[in-house]
C-alpha cells in the first residue's frame, strides 16, 4: 500500500546548525512531494515541494532532495533558528493526484 514514513521521530539541534530531516516513501509511482511545518495548535504550513523529474529544489534556507532510486526524501534547513522548532511532515501525492499521504512527522527542537 501507499505509505510515507520518517526515519526519526525527534531531532535536536543547536541554533545555527544545519538540520536534515529524512523521509522514506514506499510508492515508486508517486510523482509529487511536499514538506510541511506544523507548529502546536496550527495547521500545516507549506515549506517546499518537488516533482519526480527533479532531484533537488532550493528555497529560502531550505533544500529538498529527492532520491528516487532508494525512494528517499530529505529536507535540509540551513542555519536553524529557534523559530524552526516544530513538527515536520513529508507528504506524497497518491497515484490519482488527489490525496496527500502524510508520514508521522519529525519533531525538530532548536536550542539557543
Amino acid at each position, binding site marked *: 500500500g501507499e505509505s510515507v514514513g520518517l526515519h526519526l521521530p525527534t531531532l535536536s539541534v543547536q541554533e545555527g546548525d544545519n538540520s536534515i530531516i529524512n523521509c522514506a516513501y514506499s510508492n515508486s509511482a508517486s510523482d509529487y512531494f511536499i514538506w510541511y511545518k506544523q507548529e502546536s495548535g496550527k495547521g500545516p504550513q507549506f515549506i517546499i515541494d518537488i516533482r519526480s523529474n527533479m532531484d533537488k529544489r532550493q528555497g529560502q534556507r531550505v533544500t529538498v532532495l529527492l532520491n528516487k532510486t532508494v525512494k528517499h526524501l530529505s529536507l535540509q534547513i540551513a542555519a536553524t533558528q529557534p523559530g524552526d522548532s516544530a513538527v515536520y511532515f513529508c*507528504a506524497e501525492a497518491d497515484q490519482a493526484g488527489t490525496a496527500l499521504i502524510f508520514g508521522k512527522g519529525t519533531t525538530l527542537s532548536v536550542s539557543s
Partner: protein
Amino acid sequence: DAGVTQSPTHLIKTRGQHVTLRCSPISGHKSVSWYQQVLGQGPQFIFQYYEKEERGRGNFPDRFSARQFPNYSSELNVNALLLGDSALYLCASSLYLQTEAFFGQGTRLTVV
C-alpha cells in the same frame, strides 16, 4: 490576501450528534481537500473536491460527507458522532489538482 479560513475553530459535540465544518479556500483556488489529524499523527485524507465535483475519497465511513459550493467554499459533515471522531479537521486549498496545497488552521472537534 486571506489564506484558507475554517470555522468554527473549536467545537464540542455529544456522541450521536451531527456536525458541519466550513472552509473558504484561498481566492482563485478551485480545489478543496479535507483531512483528519488525530493527536500525534499526520493528517489523513478524507475528501477532495475540484470544480464542485468529488475527485477523491479516503478510507472513512459513510457518516462523513462533503460538498463544494459554486464559490468553491466547502462543508464537511459528520453524522452520528463517535468519541473517535475527536480530532483536528483540516481544510486545504490548491489552485488545481496536485499543486501546492495550503492548509487552514483547522477545526478542533471534541466529542464527549
